[in-house]
């Protein structure tokens, strides 16, 4: 691949980066006591209709809590499956 093409590549188009990021975020922050975790209903709301004023803290929380990150990924996957089935 040419150098110019490589520079144009977005990390979020790179399966290696995406795979690493998903694996890292799903394991690196175990948070066994579930400190500061939002309820499922709030995660679901953010998955369906993200609103900055309401969800900014939850989005930040996902960057440091693997259980919530994994739950949110599940919700996004279900939402996507639901939309695909509805089409």
């Amino acid at each position, binding site marked *: 691949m040419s150098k110019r093409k490589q520079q144009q590549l977005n990390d979020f*188009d790179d*399966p290696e980066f995406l795979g690493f990021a*998903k*694996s890292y975020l799903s394991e690196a922050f175990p948070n066994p006591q579930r400190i500061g975790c939002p309820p499922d209903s709030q995660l679901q709301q953010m998955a369906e209709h*993200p609103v900055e004023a309401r969800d900014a803290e939850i*989005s930040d929380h996902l960057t440091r809590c693997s259980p919530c990150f994994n739950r949110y990924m599940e919700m996004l996957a279900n939402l996507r499956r639901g939309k695909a089935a509805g089409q």
Partner: protein
Amino acid sequence: MADDDSAGVPRLNSLDRHGRQIAPEVFAAAETVFSRALRHGTKLLGDPAVVVNILEEVAATVSQRLLHSDPPGEATTTRNLAGYVFRAFVRHINRLKNKEHALLHAAIARNAAAPKSADPSRQFEMQILLREYLARFSFAEKDMCWRRLEGYAWDEIGKLQGLSGHAARERLRSAVKRVKAELAEEKGKKSLPSGAQAGQNEELKPAPRTDVKKKATTA
């Protein structure tokens, strides 16, 4: 294969990229739906040249099908050939998009399951970048990032933000670029040699009056 006209807009060719001939009536039908197909296909796939190649392939397939289904000399039974070509084109594009989603999903899953020690320095670099992205991205950029990690296509992400798939991709790409530029700038400041930093500080001080001492010694 798709040729470009003088304005740079790709146009149809009577042969597809595999060298299959497109029947004249199918070619005319493809020409009729060309602009609609180009608009629709470019929205989904991004590259007009790829879209035109696909339309040519579809037209060639339709030509072959007509050739085999109609006995020579008989009129074709397809009444709305242009509509038929367009529907076949849309089906083909949708199949390609689904395949692309499935491949991306599989690649993410494969890389997520890959052993972490594959290339420690690359892993470390990706870890730092990821943490910086997440710390510096805006809410909307982070939302795009979460959905991308779950294997959403750019079109799906764009729809949520009220953008096209291409615009969503560009937005996250420029956010990545912005963060990398910020990091490079911070690194540059930190790695300045102490002499250079002192030099920078001295620029802010008033210049020393060397001429005063010289005058005193000469007097």
